């Protein structure tokens, strides 16, 4: 691979992967904070307000890091991918600019109100600010997914005389069917992260016998949201995306499953290592015919294998694509298991005594981050070798004027800068969690924490 192309890809991959660690939590937490604020408004119970305030702090720290690592994403379209921007900017610039004009203004304004304005606002107004933060965060997510969806499934454009593309239908771009399922899948993925993080912090407090009352609220809300989101993640959103892939990017699906030959009744590979030179899978564990059923709803349906497609159209890193996809699906299955079991225990009023389950909830929090990252990698490695599917290859999209030397300079700079950011972030988050939610202001803490679990 051309070394300049390599470094441009590496830098974008690194900065976007790092960036997405933060928005996935803020997008996941935003609806949970709205739930807490709604409970506070409905029950007039101060505990929920304090819970919301605690999570607003965590949200705030993640939001700031999300913003400062997000600005480089917009810049890099121009700095590192200028040929792509010149080609496609007239189309995807629309959604990116709309993100700025609609979502960012909304989110940053109301987050300021939500964080700084609680004393100046009425309870209802503060709830409204939380709702607007949620709306802004999720709107922002939609515009980004719509941008990526256009790169996966270009619609509503025409070629111009100078070789670039221009928009012909605004609604086709904004309502790209690809974007709908990708968005639903992505947002329930973010919700999984938010829910597991909230449950993990709650489990940590319960296990360490601190902030018990708040810990119970966190576990309750977290487990409930985790259950809903993990199930949605598999069905209908994940399932629908898989079938969309089978229709629109069959070569991607074949590479994800490491399916070499076209066959009826294609098996689903659960475990095994793809062996590209020999066109096989080492140590395979498979479910016969399952892939055919999942993609075409028929056990005997024919699924096209990689050999059906010219090799120059294969994704350029099949093993990595295969693994990111399998990691995502494997972890998704674990999320369902963990949230079903803990929801069952919660329902039977046994969760707060089941220390083993609380330990699992605590230790599970990194997994959604890995799954979401692996999911995005599946989408983006799967799109290769195309930058815009079927229209522009990645090798044609990078900034030809920016040499590999300059690329390495900035990449190493980002590595250093993000190391500093990581240290500061971990320091701040650890401190907030150690400090915990504020104690009740209505009475001595003991009496509040003596309330039995079923009331709390």
């Amino acid at each position, binding site marked *: 691979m051309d070394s300049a192309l390599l470094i441009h890809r590496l830098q974008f991959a690194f900065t976007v992967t790092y960036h997405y660690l933060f928005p996935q939590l803020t997008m996941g937490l935003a609806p949970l904070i709205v739930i807490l604020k709604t409970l506070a408004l409905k029950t007039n119970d101060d505990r929920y307000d304090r819970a919301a305030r605690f999570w607003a702090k965590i949200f705030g720290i993640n939001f700031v890091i999300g913003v400062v690592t997000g600005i480089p994403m*917009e810049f890099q379209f*121009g700095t590192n991918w*200028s040929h792509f921007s*010149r080609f496609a900017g007239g189309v*995807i610039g629309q959604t990116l*600019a709309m993100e700025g004009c609609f979502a960012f203004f909304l989110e940053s304004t109301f987050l300021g109100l939500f964080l700084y304005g609680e004393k100046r606002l009425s309870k209802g107004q503060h709830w409204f600010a939380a709702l607007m933060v949620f709306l802004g965060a999720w709107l922002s997510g939609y515009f980004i997914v719509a941008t990526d969806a256009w790169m996966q499934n270009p619609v509503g454009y025409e070629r111009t005389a100078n070789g670039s593309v221009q*928009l012909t239908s605004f609604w086709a771009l904004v309502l790209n069917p690809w974007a709908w399922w990708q968005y639903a899948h992505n947002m329930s993925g973010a919700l999984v992260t938010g829910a597991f993080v909230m449950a993990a912090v709650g489990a940590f407090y319960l296990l360490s016998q601190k902030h018990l009352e708040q810990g119970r609220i966190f576990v309750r809300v977290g487990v409930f949201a985790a259950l809903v989101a993990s199930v949605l993640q598999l069905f209908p959103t994940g399932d629908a995306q898989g079938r969309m892939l089978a229709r629109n990017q069959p070569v991607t699906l074949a590479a994800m499953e490491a399916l070499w030959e076209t066959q009826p009744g294609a098996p689903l590979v659960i475990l095994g290592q793809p062996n590209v030179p020999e066109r096989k899978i080492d140590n395979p564990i498979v479910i016969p015919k399952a892939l055919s059923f999942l993609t075409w709803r028929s056990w005997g349906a024919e699924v096209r294998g990689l050999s059906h497609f010219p090799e120059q159209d294969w994704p350029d890193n099949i093993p990595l694509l295969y693994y990111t996809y399998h990691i995502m699906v494997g972890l998704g299955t674990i999320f369902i298991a963990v949230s079903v079991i803990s929801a069952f225990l919660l329902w039977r009023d046994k969760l707060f005594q089941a220390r083993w389950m609380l330990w699992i909830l605590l230790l599970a929090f990194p997994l959604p981050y890995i799954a979401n990252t692996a999911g995005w990698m599946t989408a983006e490695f799967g799109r290769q070798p195309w930058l815009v599917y079927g229209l522009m290859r990645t090798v044609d999209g990078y900034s030809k004027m*920016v040499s590999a030397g300059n690329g390495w*300079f900035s990449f190493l700079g980002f590595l250093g800068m993000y190391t500093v950011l990581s240290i500061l972030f971990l320091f701040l988050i650890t401190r907030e969690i150690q400090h915990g939610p504020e104690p009740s202001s209505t009475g001595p803490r003991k009496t509040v924490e003596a309330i039995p679990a079923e009331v709390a």
Partner: protein
Amino acid sequence: MATLWFMIVAVMVAVYVLLDGFDLGAGAVHLFIAKTEDERRTVLRAIGPVWDGNEVWLLAAGGTLYFAFPLLYASSFSGFYLPLMMVLWLLMLRGIGIELRTHIGEPMWKKFFDGIFALASILLAIFFGAALGNVVRGVPLNADGYFFEPLWTNWRVGEQNGILDWYTVICGVVALVTLVVHGSLYLATKTEGELNFRARNVASALWPVQLLLTIVSLIATVYIAPTVLDNFHKWPIGYIVPVIVFASLAYMFYAYSRRDAKGAFLASCGYIVGMLVGAAFALYPNVLPASTGAQYSLTIYNTATGAYGLRVGLIWWSLGMLLAIGYFTFIYRMFRGKVRLEEGSEHGY
């Protein structure tokens, strides 16, 4: 249509400079005018609720530029690769400086983060000025519409320019002084007592410097790029721009003598808008002139996207701006008035 979008992008850039300009300026100057811990906190309180929203204008302007003039975005961002990467890192450092100091109690670290905040703000002001200087001066575009500039070459203005040469350094210094004045005046309107006094003093002490630099930069601009005068000859209405610039400077002098910080701040806004509009007016219809020959220059015509996209964009852009203006009016009204530390804030700036 392309002309309209040229104006829209210019207005968004101007709004960004006006808004983020005062918090950049406040950052650049706060070490000198805010001496005690309480004063430093007052400075952060004054910009704390708004700096992040101000920076969003940069993203919104960037996004608008991207979709309306894709080739301009592609060419300028890749050509200014190195300084833009540094701008990104400085923006990060600055955010860290502002947000972290409030979370950390130890005075030693507070001082450290104050230093980071100041340094990043100063460098950003200089970089933005130098960037504008590069656009006015022209860059070595090739026939494909691309270029790449090293940080500096021989510091002369010629065909193979670097980002920094004597002209763009002047522009950087003009920007720094302008934003320091702008930021000081903003702080003067938001604070009382010693801080207010020192902020006004910094601004009025810089007045002769600002006047001198304005004249120097105008002469230098005409010297290195004589074509900037063409549009003024063509549409004499343009001469109103230098009138606005110097009238604003004159009003600032008058306001200083009356200790009218608010009037001076508004005049500073007028000055900044005048300088930016003047640059945009002089460039039009060029958006990135080529130092390698006028035939390579990027103009609004050869960089704009299709008519349909521009038309659709106008609809949602107007809607988005109406909403944004609504939010901004609301939040500035919420946090209007002088900053008083004793009022307390749950966030703890």
